[in-house]
């Protein structure tokens, strides 16, 4: 006597797909926010004839509290609190930019009321890393 084979139907439950996609999305958003600086408070200076930023690998921010950030992470200087460690910033930028001769743009977001003694060392450090600075500004309406 032949016993008939039982056929099992196995299918992935399609109802769960939406939930899986949603969780994946949340995961990637959190991952992306770790390098994001949108949570920092600063007001851009105004200027005319602005251009769109090129592809960039790093961004440096000086916020309303005169603190320095590289890719959203605060730069600390244990030896002189509140002051920028120029060499440290240059080295970190060199690592981020790598050896490539192109795509060496660094976004610079400085709060408009920041004094030269705070932002000029940053400009100097970015230049020393061989990067092109892109000052992020606001369009001035005449």
């Amino acid at each position: 006597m032949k016993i008939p084979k039982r056929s099992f139907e196995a299918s992935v439950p399609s109802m769960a797909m939406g939930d899986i996609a949603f969780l994946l999305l949340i995961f990637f958003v959190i991952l992306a926010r770790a390098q994001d600086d949108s949570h920092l408070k600063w007001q851009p200076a105004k200027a005319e004839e602005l251009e769109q930023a090129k592809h960039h690998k790093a961004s440096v921010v000086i916020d309303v509290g005169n603190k320095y950030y590289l890719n959203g992470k605060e730069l600390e200087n244990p030896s002189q609190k509140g002051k920028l460690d120029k060499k440290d910033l240059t080295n970190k930028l060199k690592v981020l930019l790598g050896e490539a001769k192109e795509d060496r743009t660094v976004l610079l977001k400085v709060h408009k009321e920041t004094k030269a003694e705070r932002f000029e060392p940053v400009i100097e450090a970015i230049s020393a890393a061989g990067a092109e600075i892109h000052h992020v500004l606001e369009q001035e309406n005449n």
Partner: protein
Amino acid sequence: MKLKRNKLLVEPPAGASSDIAFILIVFFLVCASVEPEQGRSQNLPNDDKEQKEQAEVPEVKLMPNVVLLDGVEMPKSKLQNKLTQRFAQKEGKANRIVSLNADPAVRYDRWIEYTSMIETAGGTITLQIEETKTKVVD
């Protein structure tokens, strides 16, 4: 004779609601993450080799209330024209270097305004930074 009523109310397919929700989330995320990154690019020479090649480098001293061109006070409206005239005969970036010395108290918005003027006039900016070091003597 009684007529049978047609059922007109049809429920929307529930299977598509998760897709709609997903697309809505993506839409709002994209809207929220698009930050305007307009601005001005600046490429500063990172050594003073180029500066040495130029015999006469105009020096702009930027202070909180005044601006000096080679030690002479210059109204804001005249600075750009003066620099344009100076660079008229000179070709190449290396011959159009302007040394910018900003007072430590100068604000960023003022700095941007004047560096824009210098660059519009055709100048290449090099920064002159005075560093102060404090030494404690016993």
